[in-house]
């Protein structure tokens, strides 16, 4: 070895030195660094997991919100339709009732007009008869001569006998 120019003692010392250096480096520098890197990786994983959960929660929330909006829209439409139906029903009922009232009023008015007309006709007829009889009375009073009165009286008495 010495012939080759290699100093055995120096070699051993260098080997020992290297091993010491390797041990110290591993113990105080590489180990903590790897531990730090591992810790950072764990943190990253945890962060990614949290991010994923947040994203999932957000997606769920958005879906839930959309679902709620859809339901709310459906409920609103349903309520609106029910209100419209109810309003239409009320409108029809009011129209029907109003038509019925109008028909009743028309019928009543027609009946009243008919009754008034009949009463008027009756009054007119009565007045006409009164007038006709009055005219006959006046005419007879003015135009019946004594002989005519005598003749009429005789006839009335004769008729009475026959009766």
């Amino acid at each position: 070895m010495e012939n080759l120019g290699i100093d055995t003692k120096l070699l051993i010392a260098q080997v020992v030195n290297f091993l010491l250096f390797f041990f110290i480096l591993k113990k105080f520098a590489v180990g903590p660094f790897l531990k730090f890197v591992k810790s950072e990786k764990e943190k990253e994983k945890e962060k990614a997991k949290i991010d994923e959960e947040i994203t999932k929660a957000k997606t769920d929330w958005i879906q839930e919100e959309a679902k709620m909006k859809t339901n709310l829209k459906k409920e609103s439409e349903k309520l609106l339709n029910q209100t419209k139906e109810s309003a239409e029903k009320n409108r029809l009922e009011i129209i029907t009732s109003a038509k019925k009232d109008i028909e009743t009023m028309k019928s009543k008015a027609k009946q009243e007009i008919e009754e008034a007309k009949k009463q008027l006709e009756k009054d007119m007829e009565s007045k006409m008869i009164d007038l006709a009889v009055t005219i006959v009375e006046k005419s007879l009073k003015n135009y019946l001569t004594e002989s005519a009165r005598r003749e009429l009286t005789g006839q009335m008495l004769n008729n009475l006998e026959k009766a």
Partner: protein
Amino acid sequence: MDLKTVIVSAYKLAEEEIKSIEQKFPFIKGTTIENKIDESILAGIIIKSGSKIVDISLLSKLRNLKKFI
């Protein structure tokens, strides 16, 4: 006491007419008959004797006709 009979006519009745009336209405026989003239009855007679009234005047017939119509 004499019972009085009033015969209302539109003209003055002749004796024969009064007699004829007496025959047709015997209840006036024996009563004192008075003839009253009222042209408004037009023709015929109205006999008033005590509580009895017999109206066979043309006026009453016309008024009855009015009621009948």
